[in-house]
């Protein structure tokens, strides 16, 4: 490892620790801890959303997928970006108007019931854990590769850092880590894209022309079909991307960190532009890596293609750019896992301990303490699982997280806001049907079963051919909620009218008492 690499890593770690120390002095209430006191401005929250959104899977994963599979890799960029519209049009504002810290808060604004809250918290924790393990295993492998240290040390470093941010600085520190990371990531991506374009004489059409001969796939590289050959599987994956994102707890939590709906909207504009521009640039990262690094070298460094972007940086910008990009990748992982710990901790401490076990009778001091204990619990569990999962192919965990988010969380969010007849029985059945069907369908999918040894966890024929079963599990989640609602006679229209008025007007006592 070179001196410049050490310099960039130490600079990033140092900077984030200073922020955490500064944020820790401002974190005294539960609201500070979970939502930074709702005090972020539009552009700050917009950058933080982008920081949460652009995970290592986006940066390293998509660049690698485009490099290896051409257009098929770009499906992810399109899916994640359009997903933003689902969040914006259907979920964000009602969630904000009804909720406090968590998804369960929002659902229980209509159904004040321990079973509903418990099930929502359960689905949140399940998603967070699966997503976390995938991120941590990826992080471990990456840092192992970059710094040449053992996997378990790498996981412990990331785990220790993320716990420090969350534990001492709460959402304020986590948000600022995400903001810094978003800026660094954009800077790195723009620099690499510029260098790639320069190689092609600043001509997009030259770039496309040269890409038809740059890889061994020929002109097929520029069209879909290199990786995804099964139509239904492609469709299913794109459904998971677009609907799953709107149910991811750590993304939803970011809408509570601003003071009002208008600020939330301005943050969304910032985030949509940043995220969109980033995803456009993934084309240059991927094409550049395919042309100037080459498939063999990309696969030799990491079979999944995760090293494509750092290797491209090295090829075009030498040691300094390589070190910078590696440090940015490290910051990316830290920011995303810190956000995940917070959303997992909020479900565990606020929903399960604070609202279900203590029935809301909990002092501010106890809430903050519970939030910290919850963070440590989530962090320790995920680190232990990640240490055990080193040799596991974890790609299925991400598809599982997206599937559960789209199948268990999205139906219940939509029914809660838009369906008058919906009731507690429907809410519980919607979440359980989505959760269980996603788990079962992934368990019998080609991610888990493959006839070729070493390709999946078990050797054998999968029962379904969909690598991402959202095509089946999302409709099942909606159907489960529908049937569950109709089977129960209970309904409370006056409570729905209250939710409807709050969701549509944003009215609350705080707003109008002055």
């Amino acid at each position, binding site marked *: 490892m070179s001196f410049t690499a050490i310099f960039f890593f130490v600079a990033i770690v140092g900077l984030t620790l200073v922020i955490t120390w500064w944020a820790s002095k401002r974190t005294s209430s539960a609201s500070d801890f979970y939502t930074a006191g709702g005090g972020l401005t539009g552009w700050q929250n917009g950058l933080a959303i982008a920081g949460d959104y652009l995970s290592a899977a986006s940066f390293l994963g998509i660049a690698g997928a485009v490099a290896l599979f051409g257009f098929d890799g770009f499906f992810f960029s399109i899916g994640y970006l359009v997903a933003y519209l689902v969040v914006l049009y259907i979920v964000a504002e009602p969630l904000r108007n009804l909720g406090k810290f968590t998804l369960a808060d929002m659902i229980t604004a209509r159904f004040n019931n321990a079973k509903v809250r418990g099930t929502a918290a359960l689905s949140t924790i399940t998603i967070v854990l699966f997503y976390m393990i995938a991120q941590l295993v990826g992080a471990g492998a990456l840092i192992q590769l970059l710094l040449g240290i053992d996997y378990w040390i790498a996981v412990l470093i990331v785990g220790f850092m993320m716990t420090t941010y969350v534990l001492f600085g709460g959402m304020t520190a986590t948000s600022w880590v995400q903001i810094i990371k978003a800026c660094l990531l954009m800077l790195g991506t723009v620099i690499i894209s510029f260098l790639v374009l320069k190689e092609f004489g600043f001509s997009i059409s030259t770039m496309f022309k040269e*890409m038809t001969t740059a890889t061994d796939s020929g002109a097929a590289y520029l069209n879909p079909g290199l990786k995804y050959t099964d139509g239904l599987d492609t469709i299913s994956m794109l459904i998971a991307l677009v609907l799953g994102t709107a149910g991811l707890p750590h993304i939803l939590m970011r809408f509570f960190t601003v003071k009002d709906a208008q600020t939330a909207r301005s943050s969304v504009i910032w985030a949509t532009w940043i995220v969109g521009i980033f995803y456009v640039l993934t084309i240059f990262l991927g094409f550049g890596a395919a042309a100037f690094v080459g498939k063999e070298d990309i696969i030799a460094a990491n079979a999944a293609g995760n090293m494509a972007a750092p290797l491209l940086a090295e090829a075009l910008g030498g040691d300094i750019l390589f070190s910078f990009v590696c440090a940015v990748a490290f910051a990316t992982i830290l920011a995303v896992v810190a956000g995940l710990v917070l959303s997992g901790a909020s479900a565990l401490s606020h929903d399960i301990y604070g609202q279900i076990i203590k029935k809301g009778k909990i002092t501010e001091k106890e809430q903050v303490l519970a939030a910290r204990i919850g963070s440590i619990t989530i962090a320790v569990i995920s680190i232990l699982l990640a240490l055990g999962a080193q040799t596991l192919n974890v790609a299925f965990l991400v598809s599982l997280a997206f599937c559960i988010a789209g199948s268990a969380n999205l139906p219940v969010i939509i029914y809660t806001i838009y369906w008058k007849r919906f009731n507690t029985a429907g809410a519980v059945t919607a979440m359980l049907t989505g959760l269980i069907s996603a788990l079962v369908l992934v368990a019998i999918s080609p991610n888990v079963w493959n006839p070729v040894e070493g390709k999946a966890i078990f050797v054998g024929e999968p029962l379904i051919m969909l690598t991402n079963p959202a095509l089946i599990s999302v409709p099942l989640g909606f159907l489960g909620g529908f049937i569950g609602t109709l089977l129960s006679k209970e309904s409370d229209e006056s409570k729905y009218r209250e939710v409807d008025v709050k969701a549509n007007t944003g009215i609350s*006592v705080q707003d109008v008492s002055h």
Partner: protein
Amino acid sequence: MANNQAKKGVVIDYDAIANQESFKALVRRKNSFLWSITAIFLLAYMMLPILTSYTEILHQKAFGEITWVWIYSAGLFIMTWGLCHLYVAKANSFDKEAKAIIAEYENGGGRL
């Protein structure tokens, strides 16, 4: 929520607001706007894998070596940015109506 209402002894009569014609009209227009746009962008999005999986239309060259699938994808990006701004503009105008609805409720003797 109950604990909000307990604060300062304020009770909002949500049923009264929900029964105002102005509120019903806002919700109707808002929902038809949100859901019709959602249907449009989800359709435009889902047409991409359907077209690429079952037809060869998007595999043809559009400009130089750039095939139609890239043009279609670029369209989805532009659509996302455009609809994001449309949403914010619309939501700001809905906000004004919501304020008017609350004012109407207060003037009608409703307590906040």
